[in-house]
């Protein structure tokens, strides 16, 4: 593999990680509306949506030995087009349609011509809204930031 194509692959993987993270946090309604605007290629469901569990791991002290904290419900599915390209949907929770929508958009986004439309048209606005919601929660928390004064005690 040439260095150039290796770099391209790394960049492509990073882009895919970004859009999958955004799609997994998106609302079903907004994804559904967006999907209606796209013609889907011929595809087959390699894995129909199924709900199950994943064990959430944590680390002692945050940085030490791994241990099992408890499980989380996860729904997943996978869709394949005729070229064998695979769209995967993994979402927290038990919403089958959400997983399907993530997989369908993951498939569409791997097509470079559609990507040029979907990244700015779908992913960027979703990401901006998710960031705004996080910022709002953070700003509300920040309003409760406090400075404690310790007073000298005793004589």
């Amino acid at each position, binding site marked *: 593999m040439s260095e150039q194509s290796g770099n391209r692959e790394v960049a492509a993987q990073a882009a895919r990680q970004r859009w*999958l993270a955004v799609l997994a946090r998106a609302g079903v309604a907004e994804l559904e509306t967006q999907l209606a605007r796209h013609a889907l290629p011929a595809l087959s469901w390699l894995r129909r949506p199924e709900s199950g569990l994943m*064990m959430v*791991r944590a*680390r002692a002290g*945050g940085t*030490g030995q791994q241990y099992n904290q408890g499980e989380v419900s996860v729904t997943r599915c996978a869709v394949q087009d005729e070229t064998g390209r695979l769209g995967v949907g993994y*979402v927290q929770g038990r919403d089958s349609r959400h997983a399907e929508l993530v997989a369908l958009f993951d498939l569409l986004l791997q097509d470079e011509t559609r990507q040029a439309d979907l990244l700015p048209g779908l992913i960027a606005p979703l990401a901006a809204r998710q960031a705004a919601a996080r910022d709002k929660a953070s700003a509300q928390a920040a*309003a409760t930031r406090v400075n404690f004064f310790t007073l000298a005690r005793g004589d």
Partner: protein
Amino acid sequence: MYVAVKGGETAILNSYALLADARRGDTDVPELSVAQIRQQMRLAVARVMSEGSLYDEDLAALAIKQAAGDQVEAIFLLRAYRTTLPRFGYTLPVDTARMGIRRRISATFKELPGGQVLGPTYDYTQRLLDFTLLANGVATEPPAQAEALPADMPRVTDLLAGEGLIEPETPPDGDPAPVDLSREPLKFPADRATRLQNLARADEGFLLALGYSTQRGYSHTHPFAGEIRMGEVALEIVPEELGFAIEIGDITLTECQMVNQFAGSSTAPPQFTRGYGLAFGEAERKAMAMSLVDRSLRSQELAEAIKSPAQQAEFVLSHSDSVEASGFVQHLKLPHYVDFQSELELVRRMRATHGQPTPEEETA
């Protein structure tokens, strides 16, 4: 000995109907929705998720509704449900350093980078009943906002670690996969990973009492709440078909890093040691109690004298699970007719001979 008892089917079916009716209560009062429980009883939901060992707010809220608010029963329902689902795998260890902070306090450093953030806490409320809620409440004011918190909020323990004053907390060689108590029975001696999983699922009341006992002198661990943080953490998994990590959403976690004075041993210099607590959702009391008990259960590895209940791993870990404890205590109300008959016979025989000389006494 257990002997099956048959019969009572009609009575049982009728009791189901009566239970459903009692759960619903007065039908003139609107029915509670699962969404209402999820939104407005989020701390109850958090406890059921933590001890039910399943992060799913909808299912936990449903369990609370079905159990008519009985937390231990709701936890049992959630545990039972999880056994019907396939396990897809495990997540990467959650990185609480990258938490989207909504609360973060330290009892050890007043000025820590990023600051102390109270968040939504009952700590500074007056604990006076709010009768406006009785009158179905008033519209709350939108919370104030300030400039968003820095993205990077270092853990207090990481700051102490920089000075070498606290024991390092690094993965063992090879970063081994932990034992999973939902797959394998609890065995002793239990390593820290086993203990932490057990404590994460443990009954909050039990941990609270044990943690309290350590403060009252039943094992001196000199604890300070180094840091407590609560907020959202991304869940990352590595699907087999992709081979790289992806995020699938966020979960709310509460983490407590207890910092404990330690005089040192033959192998370790005087330094601070750690106790760790982590719980699903907003569950500060649970996380704090867990961190106290985690620390006291480390007595053996730190060569401390083991004298108190909170230091005895076998005692603590074997009795911490509310589903097991509730089941075993409550099984006493199930029919024990045959056992009791035999005990009855025995007591009657003992009474008949009570006070009479034993054969040995007669021959003497």
